[in-house]
């Protein structure tokens, strides 16, 4: 039942693989990769425009349109979406859901506005969290660059109240490190996950995933490095980790 989601971070025309949300090393063509992952059986895809606020968005629109013609699984797009017009734009290019981070923190009402307009099932709240002290995580915005002082648990509850339909929770500490998912992070929010929860960041080998999935509140997991850099096929991951 758990969904395997391929996460593609994009800069300009390139697929990149950051480490702890930092760095822009190109690792391939996003459209070719998207097609490959679709054919291998990925359940969903997330496209994050990692430097959207700094560059023009035309590249992104073009990439979404091309990917949407090739893959027939749900496509979520995030990164730099600030206005309802931005949302409508990416959805008209072929996205099924949008992932919102920075603008949701700046203007929490944006979450409600989006879920009223396109439905909560399309409103994914993207949360990038960094460990602060045992049992405490802090929410970061601007692609992991800016601390907010907001407590993760508080923010999760608030975004669910405002109408988020799904949570994409990335551990900044683990992301891109191949050192395993932040199991403590996901265990700490078990009681809060009233809506579907996507874990993201840290998968380096199969054991990491098997360990994560002991937490039954995890509905989906997003992976990047193991696909883009280690070139392990989705079929293999599904077989070995027993994901149907």
């Amino acid at each position, binding site marked *: 039942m758990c969904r395997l989601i391929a996460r593609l971070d994009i800069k300009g025309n390139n697929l990149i693989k950051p480490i702890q949300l930092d760095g822009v090393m190109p690792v391939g063509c996003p459209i070719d990769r998207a097609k490959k992952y679709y054919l291998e059986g990925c*359940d969903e895809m997330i496209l994050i425009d990692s430097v959207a606020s700094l560059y023009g968005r035309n590249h992104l629109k073009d990439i979404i349109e091309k990917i949407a*013609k090739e893959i*027939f*699984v749900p496509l979520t797009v995030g990164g730099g979406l600030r206005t309802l017009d931005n949302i409508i734009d990416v*959805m008209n290019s*072929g*996205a*099924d859901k949008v992932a919102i981070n920075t603008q949701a923190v700046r203007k929490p009402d944006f979450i409600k506005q989006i879920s009223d307009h396109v439905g*909560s099932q399309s409103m994914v709240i993207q949360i990038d969290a960094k460990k602060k002290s045992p049992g405490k995580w802090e929410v970061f915005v601007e692609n992991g660059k800016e601390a907010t002082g907001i407590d993760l648990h508080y923010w999760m509850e608030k975004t669910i109240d405002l109408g988020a339909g799904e949570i994409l929770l990335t551990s900044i500490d683990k992301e891109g490190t191949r050192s395993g998912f932040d199991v403590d992070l996901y265990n700490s929010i078990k009681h809060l996950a009233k809506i*579907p929860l996507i874990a993201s960041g840290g998968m380096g080998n199969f054991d990491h995933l098997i360990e994560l999935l002991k937490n039954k509140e995890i509905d989906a997991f997003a992976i990047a490095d193991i696909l883009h850099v280690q070139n392990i096929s989705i079929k293999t991951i599904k077989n070995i980790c027993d994901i149907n």
Partner: protein
Amino acid sequence: MKRISILDYGAGNIFSIKNAVEKCGYKSILTSDFERILKSTHLIFPGVGSFDNCIQKLKDKKIYEKLKALENQKIWVLGICVGMQALFNYSEEGKKYKGLGIINGEVKKMKSDKKSGPRKVPFIGWKNVVLDERKKKMKIFSDTTPDDRFYFIHSYECVPKKKDNVIATVYYNKKNVCAVVKKNNIFGCQFHPEKSGEAGLNIIKNFIEYENMN
């Protein structure tokens, strides 16, 4: 020649459906003009978001009343997700509006329950569907296999009065929920065939290959 319309009323990702139809080898038009719709051979009626939001948008486009007449027209219709739910009499989600009443029955909130229902609502995930023994030879299911999985994302389930309208179900811990309905020229499916990989594209292709009636 197939003349395929996708109902364009501001609800749902119609581009996904257009892309899926194209992948099946057919062209389609996006329209909310009822005269044009009646000239089509096939109509796909998408829908995401809430029930009231969907009906409100149909009313804004002034096609709500007209769509009620789709039954027994010489056109094949496929409602998807909320587009399927809108075909029923009413929904527990609809505080303001009633449904089109084309299929007799109601749409009920699924209870999130670890024992008897989906673990979380909205339910999001890929599931196998069970085809009705007597209906599985229908063209809509040709080349569908028991291993095929489909993408569901919903909080409400359709409950037709006539069990005969249900042609496939999806199993949530000991409970069968309606996955595909058919009444005469009208189909509805709860999952998103346009987002269910090759198995979903196959359903769309089968739907389009129902012979033209006009």
